[in-house]
């Protein structure tokens, strides 16, 4: 019985220690202002994947070669955009995870926003 308890204590110590050793400093990432230029051409968004950190104040400056209704899933931000009309999508990245960006009219997926936990 005593042997088992010692064993469990040792394993808990090893795994606990390893966790704090490997985990990056949670204070390291302060929220930033991020402005990202995005262009949609022929139904392809470039860059296709946007990656930000939780808490970032994000501005997407979008241009497109055809008129569409840009929709960011999860955040439910929507903007019309077209050849003559650039769009600006602003939001605070409070939801973490992976969210699709689509053209709401054709329901075509254009790209993905990834919000990493802060």
């Amino acid at each position: 019985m005593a042997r088992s308890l010692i064993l469990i204590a040792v394993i808990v110590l090893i795994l606990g220690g390893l966790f704090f050793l490997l985990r990056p400093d949670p204070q390291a990432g302060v929220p930033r202002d991020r402005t990202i230029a995005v262009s949609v051409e022929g139904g392809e968004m470039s860059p296709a994947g946007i990656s930000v950190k939780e808490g970032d104040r994000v501005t997407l400056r979008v241009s497109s070669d055809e008129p569409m209704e840009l929709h960011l899933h999860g955040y439910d931000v929507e903007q019309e955009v077209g050849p003559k009309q650039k769009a600006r999508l602003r939001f605070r990245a409070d939801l973490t995870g992976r969210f699709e960006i689509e053209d709401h009219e054709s329901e075509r997926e254009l790209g993905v926003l990834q919000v990493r936990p802060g």
Partner: protein
Amino acid sequence: MNVRTRRVTAAALSFSLILTGARPALAHGFGPTYDIPIPLWLYLYGAAAAVVLAFLPLALFSRKERDAPYQYPSFDLLRVRLLRTLLTSRLLTGGLRLLSVALFFVVVIAGLVGLQSGFNIAPTFVWITWWVGLSFFTAFVGNVWPLVNPWGVLSDWAEGLARRFGYRDGLELGQSYPEALGIWPAVGLYLVFVWIENVFSGSYVPRNIALFALAYALITLYGMAFFGKETWLRRGEAFSVFFGLLGRFAPTEVRVKDPDVCQDCDGCDYDAGGGCVNCYECFAHAAPDERELNLRPPAVGLGLPEKVPPGGVAFVILVLAGVTFDGLLETSLWLEILRLTPVTQTLGVILLPLLFLGIYLGFVELSRILGGGVGFGRLAGAYAFSLVPIAIAYQMAHYYTYLLIQGQMMISLVSDPLGWGWNLLGTADFEPRYGIVGAGFVWYSQVALIVAGHVIAVYLAHSISLRLLRDPVRAFRGQLPMLVLMVLYTMTSLWILAQPIVE
């Protein structure tokens, strides 16, 4: 050629367009994932934990009695009067069976005549509520499929009607089932299901779902009529076999006390007292005072000694490979090296289980060489069930966010199942909430689940080894290859979760 064009090409070549002309749907039937890959440090941490914790059951339980898996604490829920009245009431069981048949027809009708793109209850109900939801319920609560299986219920009703109208022998043709076939029909049907889930690009199209459900209903009804209901459900009905496997993990079991009743049912697990456990056919026929509905420690059902039918090992490996395949498909490794075409995907669905089976049998052979004592075939059968917790943990880690987020769609779908603009319950405009679980929580819970499943699997392999080999030293040596295999598999699962998602 980029990923999207490749996907469209893949879809164009596959059956969906030929059959229905529908637009290509998602790579698998679940809709978009909201999970982001686990970071490298957490992957390394999970892998390290898998190695360290693998030795925990060995160190803690090595001197326990060999027959430990026969005996475990259990509590009969039917001894509590309130629970007995509730759980055995005809209103509850009959209601659930009626609901299940009704849902089957709702799915078929919605699939055939409902809106084909967008709002339709069939895809969400089948893939999220039934496939993901019911498999979690079965593994973590108990196996209700034998009670609610809609085709079983339909067969019972037809049987009852036939008897009432004077066919005294019922509808079963009573052909004898070739025993050598074992559960291979279920293995084959489950393989088709894995293919539909992961490869078939029209798996989210309501009409396809309805047609598949109808075709499968015909196969099942025919199989039950031809060979007898219980015979087919136990050997040919892929989902009865699948949920039965998960039910072995569940913290509940149904048990019949009287050994005489158990004698008449085949393929059951017998406990020390001669009663039979999770023998649903016997349970249905047993007298009320012979029945027990027990709470028990989770996963003990996977350690019970029993004969594994032909195909049993293949089925477990197929389940394991199936859940891995779904994750693997989304990795860039798969896309870059193997290319996404229906042909390579289909080859993958067939070859990955074969590869898994080969690796498993190789490690079983190593175990036989190191531990000795027991023949290869018996060893292969005995260890197979110990892999099930790994499959359940991965399935849970991979899909639980789908259930939480996509599952909310059911709230609006019940008000408008066909997508015709109805609002039966006033919930049609409900919008799913996305922020229920943050990505950080998802990361930690995924790693925790996979490592926990791994530890349970190692423990099971340990107790199986002790039971078979008796001698602790030989049992230790004999299970080492299994331990290595489990560590390798767990690292693969974690690695897949750490990969960037490509669609």
